[in-house]
């Protein structure tokens, strides 16, 4: 039991800090740069993304291990995972609209954006590649959500300040954001070797 929990904890730390999806794998950059301009959009996106990530990781794992492996059609996994995510996102959009209009007004716009996030495909693929069991996949997905949230919140707080600073004209906006991300990625390499999985 202790070893199990340790492994889960290590998975969460690994996917959120050591192998952060934005700063180590450089995935999900579209959303990352687009949404991290303001703190409130960054937080909204983080919450929505973590929720959708965990649900889609769970569903993808079940579909893969109980339907695709017995039938031997694992080679379709990319298409199937994307299909699962798209269906989930659309379904939750429709349900949220009715069940909680307040939540929909705040977070509904981010749902459609999530299906374009590379991480939403990367996590199930990695779950498959590393042969994680169900709980481990969930932990991995949770870690990825937390890591992505961390990345966006750090970026949003920096970008809000940078907007008021005296940046040279060619670098204003996105170029400066790229440079800053590179520097944060450099900083995050400090975590490497923390957990060897």
């Amino acid at each position: 039991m202790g070893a199990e929990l340790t492994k889960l904890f290590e998975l969460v730390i690994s996917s959120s800090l050591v192998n952060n999806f934005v700063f180590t794998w450089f995935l999900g950059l579209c959303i990352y740069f687009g949404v991290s301009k303001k703190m409130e959009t960054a937080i909204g996106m983080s919450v929505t993304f973590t929720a959708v990530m965990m649900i889609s990781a769970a569903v993808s794992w079940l579909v893969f291990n109980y339907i695709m492996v017995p039938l031997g059609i694992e080679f379709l996994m990319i298409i199937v995972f994307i299909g699962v995510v798209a269906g989930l996102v659309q379904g939750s959009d429709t349900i949220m609209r009715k069940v909680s209009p307040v939540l929909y007004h705040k977070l509904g716009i981010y749902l459609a954006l999530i299906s374009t996030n590379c991480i939403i495909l990367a996590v199930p693929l990695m779950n498959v590649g590393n042969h994680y069991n169900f709980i481990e996949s969930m932990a991995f997905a949770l870690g990825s959500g937390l890591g992505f949230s961390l990345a966006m919140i750090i970026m949003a707080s920096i970008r809000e300040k940078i907007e008021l600073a005296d940046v040279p004209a060619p670098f204003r906006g996105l170029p400066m954001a790229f440079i800053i991300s590179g520097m944060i990625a450099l900083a995050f390499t400090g975590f490497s070797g923390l957990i060897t999985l």
Partner: protein
Amino acid sequence: MYDIHRIVCDILELFRLADLAQILPQVGVGGEIEAKESIDVWPLIEYSLIFLAGMGGLFGFVLAFAAKKFAVEIDPRVEQVNDLLAHAHCGACGYAGCEQYAEAVVNDPSVPATLCTPAGERAARKIAELTGKKAEALEKKIARVMCGGSLSKTVKRYTYEGIPDCRAAVLTGGGDKACIYGCLGYGTCSRVCPFEAIKICEDGLPHIDPDKCTACGMCVTACPKKVMEILPASKAVLVACRSKDKAAFTRKSCTVGCIACGICEKICPFDAAAVTNNFSKIDPEKCRICGLCVSKCPAGTIEDFMTTRAKATINDACIGCGICVKICPVDAIAGEPKKKHAVDPAKCIGCGLCAAKCPVQAFDGVFNAEQVRAAKKKLKEAS
């Protein structure tokens, strides 16, 4: 039955490119799927077709069902009203977002249709039509800066080196301007204006474009010195100072600060100016924008936003009663009794008092000449 890898290797050999076979992936994409010696293709094709079709069908059904079951009824008028709004997300209507105002105005009978000031009068009338409400004519309002302290006219207490934003500058002990009630000029208002109506000029003061300003009020909330005010656009004569400091201190920090001398209070023919808290304020209800106080103010604090004041001229309707001669504050009118009088354009300041008092509306040229004539006509038709 068929080993795809072997087939590809054979084809490459045919073209004598056998070395290229090294770059062929030996395992599946995205993670280690065990490579198999050989695979049965036909069952795979069957399974994948059935599975994909099944998954697509299942998702389609679930989503269609969800769309039906969780359908939200939206009044189509909300969409139409939403299209008419300005979508500046300024908060002038008092609602959290433009969509919320559209919903409220359609569903709630007590919400007026004129709250979206940026959308203008035309939109207000259309919204009123759509929702069956009345739209009162809105007077054009505009934001004004109640400070005339440009860089050349004021003194700075210290050198401020930091984020060039008023909200940041004000954190350093109230800002670097000697007068703590004045505009700091770092451009917070310019940044928050959703219509780009405010520009910071070289003199360090914000300049508001009257065509773009919609009086949404974002600059008023954003200004940390609370030096912006929304006033009717027609009220063009303002005391551009809110300094509560005593006159001696004000003079040291700003050459155009109000010294509360009370001259404007004394000479205003409409009692619009009043001095309280060491600065003068013009009551917009009483002010007739004559511009008299502008020339009489010793500090030059009172600003006249009317760009050109046309001078008065007397037309042939003049009966020579001489009322205008007495009224004119600068003694610009002269003439013999019962004969047509004349205005000296050199002295005339275009205040419009003469046009207002003339019993036969013999004045032309001044800004209020047409208004006075129209008002007199209305009175005549009413009686």
